[in-house]
Structure formats: structure tokens, C-alpha cells
């Protein structure tokens, strides 16, 4: 069964027809030709498909597109504005926080989400003091970024890149 939906993707309004089984990830990649969110597992296990969905990081492979009619979506490509890279993207480049690049757009969207979560004061599993503001420490960032697998294993570059971009 097909359904017509509208998505705002990286600032553009896009109308499209999807199978009701189409994930948001496949809608972006296969229907709209936006390759920025990656498919690494299709089961919410690797984080490569992470996008910002109505401002929060989300796994687009676990979302059915038909349920997100009207949603505002930002991919890593959309984080760069007017030819200027986002500070997280610049930090990833400078720290060489990737190799093959396949998990990278997901890492970057996730990092942007993480920084926002810090600003909102959200705690994580490793936050000691649940009454105060969590600090952007190595352990806090590593914990929050652990849903994004990197097989090239750039983790020791990713964490400082996120800290740096967050101004920590």
C-alpha cells in the first residue's frame, strides 16, 4: 500500500509517495536520492542512519516514513549551510575523526544531538550528579556516542572532536 507524504528535508519541502513499509531511511535514500544518512544494519544497531528528526537525533531506519508526514528532517548534508561546514563537521575533519566515512554522517548528526542534550541538561548513564548540569567530559561524550559504531575505530578522535565542537 502506498501513501503520499510531505517531508521537510534539509530546509526543502519534498512531496513523495512511499510504501507504508518504507522506513524514513529508505525514503531519504531511495525515494529522495539523499545518500547522507547511511544504511549499516537497518535494525537500529549501528547508528549510521542517524538524522535530526524535529530537532532530536533519531535512527531513521527504525522510523516508518508514513508516520512522519510533515516532519522536519536534517541530515549531515543539511548541517552545512551556505557552503560553510557545521562546527562538528569542522572538528571531525581537523581531528581526523573518521576513515572510510560511512558512519560519519550518522556520528555527526548524533554529536549535534548530544551537544543539544547537554545544553538541555539531560543526564546520561554515567552522570554522577543528577541534580546538576552534566559536564561535557570524555566519559559523558563517549557514553552518549556509543550508539554510533565505527568499524574503522576512530573513537579516540571522535570524542575530542565532539568536546571541541561543544566548546568544552
Amino acid at each position, binding site marked *: 500500500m502506498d501513501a503520499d507524504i510531505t517531508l521537510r528535508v534539509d530546509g526543502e519541502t519534498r512531496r513523495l509517495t512511499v510504501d507504508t513499509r518504507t522506513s524514513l531511511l529508505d525514503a531519504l535514500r531511495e525515494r529522495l536520492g539523499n545518500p547522507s544518512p547511511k544504511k549499516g544494519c537497518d535494525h537500529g544497531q549501528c547508528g549510521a542512519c542517524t538524522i535530526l528528526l524535529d530537532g532530536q537525533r533519531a535512527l531513521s531506519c527504525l522510523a516508518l516514513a508514513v508516520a512522519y508526514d510533515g516532519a522536519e528532517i536534517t541530515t549531515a548534508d543539511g548541517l552545512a549551510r551556505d557552503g560553510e561546514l557545521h562546527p562538528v563537521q569542522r572538528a571531525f575533519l581537523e581531528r*581526523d575523526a573518521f576513515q572510510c566515512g560511512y558512519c560519519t554522517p550518522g556520528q555527526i548528526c548524533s554529536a549535534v544531538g548530544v551537544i543539544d542534550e547537554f545544553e538541555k541538561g539531560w543526564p546520561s548513564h554515567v552522570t554522577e550528579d543528577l541534580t546538576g548540569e552534566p559536564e561535557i567530559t570524555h566519559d559523558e561524550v563517549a557514553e552518549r556516542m556509543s550508539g554510533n559504531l565505527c568499524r574503522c575505530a576512530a573513537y579516540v578522535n571522535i570524542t575530542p572532536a565532539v568536546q571541541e565542537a561543544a566548546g568544552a
Partner: protein
Amino acid sequence: MTDLLEPRAIGQGLVRRDGELKVRGTATYAVETPVENPAYCHPVQATVARGRVTAMDTAAATALDGVLAVLTPFDAERLASTEDAEYAVLQSDEVAFRGQLIGVVIAETSEVARQAADSVRVTYDEQEHDAELAVDHPGLYKPEKVNAGHETDTAEGDVAAAMATPQRDGGVTLERTYSTAMYHNNPLEPHATTALWDADAQFLTLWDSTQGVHPDRAAVCEVFGLEQEQVRVVCPYVGGGFGSKGTPHANVMLAVMAARALPGRPVKLALTRQQMFFLAGYRTPTIQQMQLAADRRGRLQAIAIDVVEQTSRIKEFAEQTGVPARMMYASPNRRSTHRLAALDVPVPSWMRAPGECPGMFGPEVAMDELAEELGLDPVELRVRNEPEVDPETGKPWSSRNLVRCLREGAERFGWAERPRGRREGDWLVGYGVASSVYPTMRQATSTANLRYADGRYVAEIGAADLGTGAWTILPQITADALGVDVGDVDVRIGDTQYPTASVAGGSSGTNTWGSALVVAARAFRDKFGGSPDDGDEISGDVDQAAKDDAHAPYAFGAQFVEARVNADTGEIRVPRLLGVFGVGRVINPRTARSQLIGGMTMGLSMALHENSVWDPRIGQVANHDLAEYHITVNADVGEIEAVWLDEHDPYVNAMGSKGIGEIGITGTAAAVVNAVHAATGVRVRDLPVTLDKVLPGLP
């Protein structure tokens, strides 16, 4: 001796040239290639481990709206060559392992393709299978050669006699069995292909995720009976490979077959993560029986490794696990053997440092056990067994700085103050060490084309960048060989329209392609001088580059690990990991460090997390996805640092560089095991090191 380049661009930590595309997600990987009106494929896989397909009912599949074709062994095209049984997809009704490809659905959308594939009803004549490796498997055999052309067995002196002679004056002998698990490469980008068959022109275009466009093309041509001129393979970016994309697997042939069934229509076939555990290669589990004899001062009198591993019944891959023990340390008596069991299992293949990775586990843990028996510092034990020349070939080393790596690492890590089972709160703390090694290899064929156009130097070579940095470092090499600014040089890779390049494997890419580029650049200067005209062009072959066969070329390293084991739960943490390497001259410190720490982290992953849990009853990996096949995640790593010596090697190539893609994963797991032992007194000899193995022995 080679004529070493004067390093100007070489040695600079330039940011990746493909970096901006990658942080935006706009670098195009194979299945993302924008093509007009693509169709989508979904494979059908066998659900028995051995037998025959007696019937496939595709009626429900073909009846679905949007299904374009269903191919089965009963109606698929006959291939020109079925010599390589892995590639002989849909050519017979025989099932050789669970998960084997037995069909494919091609449909208008990926959703319909998948639904249709699921609706194909298959009937089997199931036969009894044999899918369990054992050290005493009755079918063990001696392969003719092991991977990379190494001898299967080697022997020198008399190990048995050395082991049988009671070691006088406090010498010791040691006999231990070590094992490594089955591992799956699992690059983050699943194996994927976009394929287009132009029937009129009889021309095939493949956008394939591969570590080598030319080897990929050669395999496809062989299987389908096509000439090279009829096939183009394009692959500018690879989402990781670690060996699994070093040779094509059956999925590539299935994609080509699907494209040929639908001429003029591009088809896309991406394996699912689950399918990769059946079809994309893996590292065999290994059983390593070690024997060591040493005098009381720790000088080895015998070293032997007898390896048992598996291959598939339909195609042999013999991992060369016993190879590093042949050359690491001096000993008058030596032996190495490899025996395989050919089982009803998926086809094993290359995974990062085949041979050296598992083969630096048993021996490097055994050295630690030997040091303990002798009451020696494990660093000192290794130093005392430093060979003057390569024990295997008798050749002098091109450069060997293992001792410097060990000493430098010990100094930086604080080895002299190492804790032994020190308790800090709830945690037991220990340090471990192991050596690393990887041969410096150059492939026989690669050609680079170089021309001057519009004020820029443009080189072309069909090389691959799987995240290694080739896009960035090949211009650095070319610039220094030409004596120009790196900003004036472009190097284009990843397309069979460029001259032939070897596979990105065996840590040989930079050595091979870089040497070809240097030949081209020097020939260009000789012919055209310093002020070339627009359009001046020349090519260079790697076989024209100076090659030194008089020396044994290897990279060496030492890895140091701090392990902390929770005294109550057995939880194992590795807060610090240091690698010191002698890898020749480093072309780009930024990307080189990433490769080394990436390899070390993958070694940590092997030590603590990775394990393809094999179920021999049904013949498949039980944990075949990324939720249950654990790899190291961000929160698992603490400090990981890689440093390198200022090493001058005039024998390896004009860059003075050795390979760095694989050495980082060698020895790491042994260093972790040795550190866990130092912390707890528990010696784990079968990977991975998990808390259930440690807990019963905690103090």
C-alpha cells in the same frame, strides 16, 4: 638501495582531500550511485547447511505487483566459468552451506523485492552436514600452500628433541594450546553493487564496493566470459573493507546476473547486515598448539606452532596463522604446520592481517607465560631473543627496530613501575605487553599515468581508498617525486578507466601505487624537464621501481596495555593502550595515526568483544547482527595512542615507507590477555577474554 625521495609534502599531516564530502555524507558509495530508474534486488538464501534444492515455488513472488524477475538455479543463465565455486551462483541445485545464494528477486522497490524473496517456497533434499571444527577432526588435511603463497609447513633443527631434553640449569619448556574465535569483518558499509548491462553494446558497468576495481573486474570477466573492454568498475569510496572487499564475493556475481536479466535497467543489490555473516567472508577460528623451550637466561631453544583451522568444502582459504612465529624470534629449532578441516560452512577469506593477526596471539601469550616461568621481564625476554637476521630466510633485515619499540614503549608507558595484581578499590590492575609485526609487501602490477594539463599535474591509477587516506597521500608522494607543491597535484583513483592497480590489501597499497607514481613522475621529469607543455603525458609501472630482494622487509611494533578487572564482577576495562611502531617513513601523520589506532582498537575488540558464536547443529553464526556480534564501541575505549620511531629504511621503496594498515591489529589481543593475567593471575588462552572466564579465578 632505493633512491629515497626528499620529503616535502611527505610527512605533512594534511587533512583528507575527501574529508568534506565524507562529513557531509555526499561521497557516493556503490549502492548510492544516482542512476535512472533503478530496480532493487533481494537474494534468496538456503536454509539448510547441506543438501539439494529439489524445487522452488516462485508463483507467489512473481504474482506480486512490482516484481520484475525471479532467478533460481533452475532458470538462471549459465556462467562461462564455474571453476571458483564461491562465484558459481545459481549454477546447480547443490547447497554447500546455510545461507548460500539460491535465488534473487528483482523488483521496482526494495520493499517489494524483500517481500517477494521471503515468499519463495523452497524444498530441499537435506543431507547430514559437518560444520564443527575440532583439533582432532578426522578430515584434517595439509593444504598445498597457505595464504599469500607461504609454505604450509616449515621445520629446522629438532623441536621434539629440544622439548624432550630436560632443560639444564633452570631452563624451561612450555606446551600450551591457544585459540582465537571466528570473526566477521563487518565494514560499516554492507557489500553492495549497482550494475547496468547494456545488451546492445554488450557492456557492463559496475559501481561496486571493492578494495580493487581491476581485480574485481578480472573476476567478473572470468565468471561471465567477458573481455576487460566490456566491463567498467567504478568505486571512488569504500565504506570499509578490512579484507572482505579485497576479493569479490558471490553477491557481486548475483548482481551482475540480475543486471543481465534486465538489460538496460540499472539494478541495485546491497547485502543486509545479517546476510554478510553468510556471504562476505570471515576469519576462520584457529587452534594454535605451541611449544617453547628456553635456557635459564630465556634464550629460545625451540619454538613450534601447529595450527588447526577451517575452510569451506567448496573453496579453500588457508589462513597463514603459523607464519609470524617463523621469523619473530631467534631459535635453533623451529617448526610450523597448518592443517585444515573442510566443512559445510561459508567461505572464509581475508580479514585484516590474515595470518599475522591470529598468529601473533598464541606466540605472544606463550612468550608472556615463558617469561613468568623464568622470572623474567617479558620485555627483556623478547630483547634476548632478537635475531640477527631473518630466521626464516637468513637475509638481513631491511630495518628491524623491535627492541627500540619495546624500550620506547616501556619508557612511555611506565612499564618499570608496573603493578602486578595491585588492587585499587574494586579493581585489580595489571600491565601487559606484546610485539607486533607485519611484512612489507609490494604487488607485482600497477601502472600510473601522469600528465600536465591546465597548469596542474594529474595522475590516474585505479587504486582504492577504503578510509586509508589514499586520496590524500598519493598526491603527497607524487608532488615530492615531481618536486612541486602538493596543491598542484591531483591523483584520481577508483575506476578501471584509469591504469591497472593492485588490490588494497596486505598493507601494500602505498608501497605499490606510490612506487608506480614515483616511476611515472621521475620519467616525466626526465622527458619533459621542469617546464612541461600542456598535454605532456607519461606512464610508469611499479615493475620499473627499484626492488630489493636481498633484505627481509618487515614493520615491527610493541603494544602496551593497562587492564583493570573488577574484583567482584570480573568486568574487564582497558583504560590505556599504547603502540610504538617502526614503520619506516610516515607519509601523512594525521591519517597514519588513524590507521594505527584503528587497527589497535580492532585488536582490543578482538580481545574483549568479538566472537561469531557458531552453532554447528544448524551451521550458522547465532549472533549474526550488530546487536549481538559485539564490536568495540566508543565507551569501551579509553586512551589509545600510537607513536612511531623516526625510522630510515633505504630498501623498501622510494618513499621509505612500510605498510601501516594491518600492523596495528597484530599483538594487541595478546597484550590484553597478558595484562589481564598480570591483574588477576588468570591466564585466558581462548579469545575473547570475557568475565565468565576470569571470574572463577579471581583472588
